[in-house]
């Protein structure tokens, strides 16, 4: 009886591992066959529920600012004909592993984890600090993103250029990213920091709706261009 249960448990574990491993293969297929028909973007509004994220100067919590930005960007992307998948639509706690699973199931061409902060200035772009690896049928969960790091860096480069072109102050770095490191799609984190003048004084907070609208418009245009760019599968 105990053995049967253990056997079923083991089977379940292997099925999950197999599903995770097959995801990259199917993404490759989707990119070659379907990229013209369906271009999917995952928007992951970071934090939510008990995980409030940081507190912004306006008094609003980061979790609310990221959700507002996700909603704003979603409508702009949908208006440009992209399929948008979100990891949360309300103030709910979503486990990082669930966020990655949603992203991995969606076979998206871009997975964006959205943050907001009171520190620094402009837009902070981050890709995973994992070393690039060859796509394989079996990818370890903790470092699944490693097979996509090169795509992710290319995506970050495209968004960086667009943001710089539109006059934003941008920093582009690599770091260990919770949830993003488990994603099997070109993925990155976008952190909106306050807009600052030359004297360092804040001219727009990260939850300012006009500021968010400007950033979202630039990102939507950049993703539309990224969609049309020819890429290696």
């Amino acid at each position: 009886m105990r053995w049967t249960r253990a056997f079923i448990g083991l089977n379940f574990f292997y099925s999950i591992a197999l599903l995770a491993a097959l995801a990259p293969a199917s993404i490759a297929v989707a990119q070659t066959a379907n990229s013209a028909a369906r271009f999917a973007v995952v928007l992951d509004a970071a934090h939510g529920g008990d995980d409030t994220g940081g507190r912004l100067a306006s008094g609003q919590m980061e979790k609310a600012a990221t959700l507002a930005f996700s909603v704003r960007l979603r409508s702009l992307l949908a208006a440009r004909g992209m399929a948008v998948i979100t990891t949360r639509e309300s103030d709910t706690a979503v486990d990082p592993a669930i966020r990655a699973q949603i992203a991995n199931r969606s076979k998206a061409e871009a997975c964006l984890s959205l943050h907001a902060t009171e520190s620094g200035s402009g837009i902070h772009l981050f890709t995973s600090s994992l070393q690039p690896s060859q796509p394989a049928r079996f990818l370890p969960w903790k470092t699944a993103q490693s097979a996509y790091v090169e795509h992710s860096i290319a995506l970050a480069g495209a968004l960086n250029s667009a943001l710089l072109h539109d006059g934003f102050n941008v920093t582009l770095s690599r770091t260990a990213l919770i949830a993003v490191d488990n994603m099997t799609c070109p993925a990155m984190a976008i952190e909106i920091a306050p807009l600052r003048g030359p004297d360092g004084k804040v001219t727009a907070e990260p939850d300012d709706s006009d500021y968010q609208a400007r950033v979202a418009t630039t990102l939507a245009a950049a993703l539309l261009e990224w969609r049309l760019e020819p890429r290696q599968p």
Partner: protein
Amino acid sequence: MIPRHQKILFSVLLAAALIMTGVLWHLRQRAHQRLLAGEDSAPTKAPEVAPTEQATLLVANDADGSLLVQARSLPLPGDPNARARVLLGELLDLYAAPDAAHPVTGGASGVAQVFLLPVPSSKDSQNSGDELAVVNLTGNFAASHPSGLETETLTVLSICGTLRANLPHVTKVRFLVDGQQRPNLAGHADLTRTYLTADAVPTGGANP
């Protein structure tokens, strides 16, 4: 009517109780005085005459996400653990300064201890010469650290980079908060993983 001998016995017992109270109070005061005197005369740490040395700090800047090299002359103790703690204390003091480019309150007291442990080489479990630094931050430092992907990442990287610049044998860094493992620093930077000091290189960081 209470018998006379009982009255006498009661008076004697009452007197004894009062005297005992007085004696106990006196003893307590004496013990307290002794304790205070003992604290004063306890051997304090011998005043170390640490020679002033040239140290390199990797200082974070929130404005452009950069890690800039800054040379400082510091009295550095000989013991590597104490040395590492002094270096990181100096770095955190810079961050606690009023005009800091990477503001974090708390200063040097934010690092409780640093322990350097040998990293066994992977093939044979012999000492590779490389060291793992375990940086024990205080709960107050973590609680007062600003929340954000960039600011938290910069704190972690500047600590790793400063250790590497002065103690080249330190190849890996792990973080504890009040002696315990914590999921993240202030909501973002992953504190469950081992950081490689090679990843913390001084950068311009900013876009051209």
